[in-house]
């Protein structure tokens, strides 16, 4: 009976605090801290038994205010360690932060707690002001401070907007100071950060920046050249490469490299008559590998619905390909190039358009997949599962235009290995049959007139 009365009393007290706290949830720490002063605070710490224990020595707390807002709460832990807590959102703080610890003041005490990603608080200490009172258990104070913090986060909208606006204002001032907007600009130029050794499909990025010369002779640069001109000051219209700031990469499809150059083009947003361009000749000398292999037996389920018993799945065949090659001259340097188109007849789609020098290796893989290994046999059977068959290599036809003097194309279209037979359930049984290897693909080179329109 006595216990019930105690529980009822505790519930009433908790309810009172929750109601009181809910009312205070409208208030920021700035308002609540009007009732607090710097001084020595009585400290309760969470003890080993999960209950709060009073710490023998009070901790000094220094509350610093600036224009009605609290700018810092310095907790001198045990009177010897300085822990400076700063407001989360100046103007309407829900807590003060020091590293990943938080401090929120409620009623007549401060709660020193950890906060996790699930919006839960774990109180480590409670700092009670002189004449203050504290008598909650850890669970109750955790709930109380979490309720306060989450409610206050919702009320921070305008303070957060102010912080955002201040940040935006600073950013805008910085942008304007470095932008070409409202500045007298004589010219803009594109400058490479280093001269690329190779300019070809799959070559490394070409990194560039912009230098603007003002009419007074001074220069401004983009960040990658050590300046601060925002990239938003320019419209990009690069061709034959990606159209991105800082760095571009040569297009993989040669049909967009019509003039055998990578063309960087920029226009000033604030001075549209100011334009700059830079053409970089392609070198077409990075080796390329194209794979149109058949799937492996253990990937068969990704391609079709299969029933998986103890036998391994059969692998897929390599795709059939037609490779057309035509000789051309580099439109700027006159160097010999081969235009190469790879058409996948199995999938009825063009796989690649490349331009490569005759010496640059092109490796085309159309191998059959490897059969899946058989599984261990069933108890009811004497043999293990059979291995799946390997896929056949794809048939590849190279059609070489009479204009082509040489090329460097390697075709890999071998049949895939058969999967290994699985072991039997009993040692006395026999191993399953190995799968048959796939047949090698057929490779043919024909000489015929080819007209590639890219």
């Amino acid at each position, binding site marked *: 009976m006595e216990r019930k009365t105690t529980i009822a009393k505790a519930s009433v007290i908790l309810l009172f605090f929750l109601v009181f706290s809910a009312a205070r949830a409208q208030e920021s720490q700035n308002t609540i801290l009007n009732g607090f002063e710097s001084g020595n605070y009585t400290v309760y710490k969470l003890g080993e038994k999960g209950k709060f224990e009073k710490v023998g020595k009070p901790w000094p707390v220094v509350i610093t205010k600036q224009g009605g807002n609290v700018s810092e709460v310095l907790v001198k832990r045990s009177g*010897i*360690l300085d822990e400076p807590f700063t407001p989360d959102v100046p103007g309407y703080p829900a807590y003060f932060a020091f*590293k990943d610890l*938080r401090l929120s003041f409620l009623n007549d005490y401060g709660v020193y707690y950890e906060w996790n990603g699930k919006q839960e608080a774990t109180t480590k200490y409670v700092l009670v002001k002189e004449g203050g009172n504290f008598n909650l258990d850890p669970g109750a104070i955790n709930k109380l401070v979490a309720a306060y913090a989450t409610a206050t*986060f919702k009320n*921070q909208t305008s303070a957060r907007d102010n912080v955002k606006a201040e940040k935006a204002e600073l950013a805008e001032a910085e942008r304007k100071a470095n932008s070409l907007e409202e500045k007298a600009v004589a010219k803009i130029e594109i400058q490479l950060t280093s001269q690329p050794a190779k300019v070809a499909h799959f070559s490394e990025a070409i990194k560039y920046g912009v230098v603007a010369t003002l009419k007074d002779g001074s220069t401004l640069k983009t960040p990658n050249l050590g300046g601060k001109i925002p990239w938003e000051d320019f419209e990009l219209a690069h061709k034959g490469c990606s159209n*991105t700031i800082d760095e571009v990469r040569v297009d993989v499809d040669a049909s967009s490299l019509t003039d055998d150059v990578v063309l960087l083009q920029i226009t000033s947003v604030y001075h549209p008559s100011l334009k700059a361009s830079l053409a970089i000749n392609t070198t077409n000398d990075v080796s390329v590998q194209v794979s149109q292999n058949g799937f492996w037996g253990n990937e068969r389920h990704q391609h079709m619905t299969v029933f998986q018993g103890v036998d391994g799945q059969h692998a897929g065949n390599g795709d059939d390909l037609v490779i057309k090659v035509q000789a051309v001259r580099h439109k700027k340097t006159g160097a010999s190039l081969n235009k190469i188109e790879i058409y996948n007849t199995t999938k009825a789609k063009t796989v690649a358009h490349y331009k490569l020098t005759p010496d640059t290796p092109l490796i085309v893989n159309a191998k059959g997949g490897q059969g899946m290994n058989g599984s261990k046999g069933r108890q009811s059977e004497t043999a293990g599962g059979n291995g799946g068959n390997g896929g056949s290599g794809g048939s590849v036809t190279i059609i070489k235009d009479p204009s082509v003097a040489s090329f460097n194309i390697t075709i890999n279209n071998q049949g895939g290995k058969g999967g290994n037979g699985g072991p039997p359930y009993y040692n006395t049984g026999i191993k399953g049959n190995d799968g048959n290897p796939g047949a090698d693909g057929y490779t043919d080179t024909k000489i015929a007139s080819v007209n590639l329109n890219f």
Partner: protein
Amino acid sequence: MKKLILSMALLGVFVLFSAQEAHSQLAGALAGKVGKGKGGKGGGGGSFTAFNDETDAMGVTGEYFGLSDGKAYGLRFVKEEGGKMVNKIHYFEKKGDEPQLKLDLKENYYTKHQVKLFYFWISASASGYVELVEVDPGVIAQIKSDRSYNDGPVGLDATRTVVDVYAKDKASFDTWDVETAQAKVDMLIGSLKAEESEKIKKNLMKFESYGGYVGKIAFAKGTNYLRNQRENEPVEKVANFITKAELGSTVAYKPYFEMPLEVSHPGAWFNITYEMLGETTDREVLRKTSSVFSENIPQIDKDKGIFYFLFPRVTVDNSSNSADYAFLELLRKNQEKLKVGDVYDLKVTIWAYKDGANIDPVASGTIQLEYTKEATGTKKLLFDPVDGWVSKLEKVLD
């Protein structure tokens, strides 16, 4: 047979007893005190007041009292031994000339930051590690860690837990309890970490990927091009980075941060936003909109202590059949605007996120995504009625 079994059992007991006896010399020393609490065994009870008459350059030597058991212990700093510089601390809990433990000083912590940290490995396991850190003149914290053997003290990123405090003057325990000592140790380790971060960054800048992309996001056509097995060694080749890809194909990406998030934004975790064609999707916002997103968009709270994601993120990964639902939602929103043959800029931003809001961007990057012409390309990848990424999302959302 019975005799054999009996002999084996006796031998086993003997081996066990011998091992315990051998270990007890150390276990009875400092390591044995870990978690022992008051009233536990472990020797002690002697007086080491004579140690207070000795002086050393470190100012460590003296008689100490344990917070947990109140017993007296002796610590002596030994700079030289047999003509060689050793810089060790000798720990005594029994009378005699031989210390029960000899702990090494981590010298550069002391020479650079005056942090006096001594360590000893009793065994290679985490429980066999003993560390003493001076938190105040005459006050030393005993620490255990969560790491197994390392050549030297455990790393700065290890969890160090103060388990006991020793003080020359028992009155120091009025202020130096375990929690306060823990706070001071965290501060000391924090100052060492700050310096280490700068050192790590200086080294990272030598890597082509980090040096060229700090503050940015690099993209590649598979996670294998961006994956690292080791922290602070971004050995990925920038030649494998891409700036353009087929829309709907696999695109992995990796951000490189100026500083680890726990240094630049303590208490925050990562959020990611995707922007394309004027639409923006936000992982943290989406998580709160439906159970589908709530289930499939988890918080990104790993990798806060390092300079990049150890395992890259993906927009879509067709090989592992995974995707970022926030990216898929962006495509779902934009699907009416997408046209065959067009190229779209996708901007990805990684944010420091706290208290329900993006605080600051910590890395961003843009990639161009092309809606390929072939029916087997973008259209199949995104809008195939069975396997298309957007179609799959529509089935659960619409």
